[in-house]
């Protein structure tokens, strides 16, 4: 829409309910403001300080009804008003069949990841019972992969994540420490399987519990997208710093699993994003590929656990990984909004 001293004119005054973005172009010679007002005068959205010759976007969510677009050139007086009419029912985001399909497929992916972790955790349980330290170490790392690629879904349950994945540094005074990292500390620091069976049994039970809950877990397109962003947050705060796997230094295995899980979400939601925000889709393609390239540069083989111990990764490589994570995480944080505005 164009705004000036004399006009306040959206290209279209008959709109469909849902999210609408006004691209305001101040073609006048004074600064201006724009408001979208309800019939009772309350404000749905506003942009101030729009300098002459500048363009701004104003995004609002409108339900059916009459609205007023008001421009205030020179920031004085009542300004210029144009009425707009919004019709139609606001489509719920879930009504988009493509998102429903993505959610169904994602649920299957999460179940498969949890099942993979469970299978390997049972083998870890057996190796610990048999006192086989070397085998237990290998299985510890392998059993983390399925979990790390789907972790935000488990985190949503609240109780499971702290029981399964808490780090020693995160414990409160008096809190009992359970889960993978107790086993990690025993295997790497104490170099023994002694006393770990109790924790392996509990881990297996937790994973069985998780699998039973996946079919009814609350998942929608927005929560999937936010989960992908959270996986990158995990990488940025835990893996880049080497805090996640303080004893095993298998941080890069978790790192890759986090990225794989986030990429899966993007791939499933991509048909929607390509439609609603094609530039974002392109940017995510590019930045996912760039991060994968940095991970491939340090890996020792094609397998999901074939990565070097993180304490042997030099600063230059860590800097490159960190920059690639930031480059991806920023556009990924816009995925949820892109999904929410697709309907």
């Amino acid at each position: 829409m164009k705004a000036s001293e004399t006009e306040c004119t959206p290209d279209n005054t008959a709109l469909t309910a849902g999210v609408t973005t006004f691209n305001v172009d101040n073609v006048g010679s004074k600064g201006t403001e724009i408001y979208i007002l309800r019939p009772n005068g309350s404000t749905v959205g506003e942009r101030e300080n729009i300098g002459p010759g500048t363009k701004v976007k104003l995004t609002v969510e409108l339900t059916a009804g009459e609205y007023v677009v008001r421009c205030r050139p020179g920031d004085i007086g009542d300004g210029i008003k144009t009425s707009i009419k919004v019709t139609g029912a606001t489509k719920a985001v879930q009504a988009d069949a493509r998102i429903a399909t993505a959610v169904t497929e994602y649920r299957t992916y999460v179940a498969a990841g949890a099942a993979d972790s469970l299978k390997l955790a049972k083998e870890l349980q057996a190796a610990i019972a048999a006192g086989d330290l070397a085998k237990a170490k290998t299985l510890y790392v392998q059993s983390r992969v399925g979990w790390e690629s789907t972790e935000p879904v488990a985190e949503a349950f609240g109780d499971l994540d702290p029981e399964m994945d808490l780090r020693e540094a995160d414990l409160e005074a008096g809190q009992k420490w359970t889960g993978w990292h107790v086993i990690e500390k025993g295997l790497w620091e104490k170099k023994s399987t002694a006393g770990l069976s109790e924790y392996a049994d509990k881990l297996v039970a937790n994973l069985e519990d998780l699998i039973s809950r996946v079919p009814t877990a609350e998942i929608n397109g927005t929560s999937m997208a936010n989960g992908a962003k959270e996986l990158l947050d995990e990488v940025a705060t835990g893996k880049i710093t080497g805090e996640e796997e303080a004893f095993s230094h298998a941080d890069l295995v978790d790192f890759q699993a986090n990225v794989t899980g986030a990429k899966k979400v993007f791939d499933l939601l991509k048909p929607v994003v390509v439609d609603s925000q094609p530039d974002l889709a392109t940017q995510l393609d590019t930045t996912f590929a760039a991060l994968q390239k940095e991970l491939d540069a340090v890996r020792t083989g094609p397998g999901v656990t074939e990565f070097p111990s993180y304490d042997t990764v030099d600063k230059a490589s860590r800097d490159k990984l960190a920059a690639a994570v930031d480059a991806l995480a920023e556009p990924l944080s816009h995925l949820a909004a892109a999904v929410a505005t697709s309907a």
Partner: protein
Amino acid sequence: MSAITRRGLFGVGAATAGAAVAGAGALAVGGLPASGAGASAATWTRPDVVPFRGSHQAGIATPVQDRMHTVAFDLSTSDRAAVVRLFKAWTDAANRMTAGQEVGEGAIPALEESPPDDTGEALGLPATRLTLTLGIGPGFFESEGADRFGLRSQRPEALIELPRFAGDKLDPLRTGGDLVVQACADDPQIAVHAIRNLVRIAFGTATVRWSQLGFGKTSSTTPNEMTPRNLFGFKDGTENIGAADTDLLAQHVWVDAAKDGSPSWLDGGTFMVARRIAMRIETWDRTSLGEQEQLIGRTKQSGAPLGSSQERDKVHIEALPPASHVRLVHPDSNDGHHILRRGYSFVDGSDGLGRLDAGLFFIAFCRDPRTQYVPMQRKIASQELLAEYLVHTGSGLWAVPPGVGEGGYWAQSLLEA
């Protein structure tokens, strides 16, 4: 709609505070010889706003604010189009932030699923004369022998790698950078907000190499104001180039491409030198007043040159101790060369041994660092007795493009060269 907006808050302040505020505004904004040209008068009438657009970049000759956050970046791309996109996005954000406005679609987006474009900590605050100044480092033109953006031929000859000076203890993590952005404002939260948002916009194109916070300007470009003091407790920058001194600015600061043999994109630009100079604060404090004054060449109380009584008395260099700071850096000892200083004090906490990690973040703008900064620094590094109390721990030199005109973007003349 929130009741208090940044513009709204300021409007109330200006209306009720009356003449005092209006007077300050005339000084802060109206008195800008350099950057004022070309600004759109309709919007820029607020005393807390320094125009972003103009023939020279703001933050050089414009009045020095109280706080600084300077950041150096390395570019992580070899695609010139990506740099153009970055500079356009930065220009848009800088244009808005310097006017006290929020970045992009603001701090409170319409969609709660969306992360806000603006990080929000400047909401409700006036712009406090925020200026943002961009510089281009040697690594922009050539990196590891590669002509990364096809602009190697545009590198100004004066954009040298600074030589090693006696006593330098440069930390690579505080030195250099393909780009630099200097943010200055009267409120540290405004300066930090500006840098934080520019860093965020740069993710994927440029990574932060280092950044430095500063407070308590150590030089002013407004000679009628009280000369500020540095952490040694001495007045600093008494003979600095004033914002209104267009002749000295033209002679010593602004590049004249034709006369200087510089690429034409830099016409109206300048060069920025930054040096992180740690001060040995505790040993300085145990030095007698007499020795302190001999080392500096001015009295501590009034700032008068030794042997004179008033701060602004003419400096007779031959009357000052031979190895004193003022004698060695004075234009009369340097073939008449002036530099425009715009440094800040810093205290980055303590060093773990109970001593302050503190000093001067020296910033200077000059037309040719080869004839203005380098000879002077080479001389004082090896000759001045004050050097005993100073350690240079960070360094950088950047070419500063001319100002941004209406509709243009930062460094456009270079990227479209």
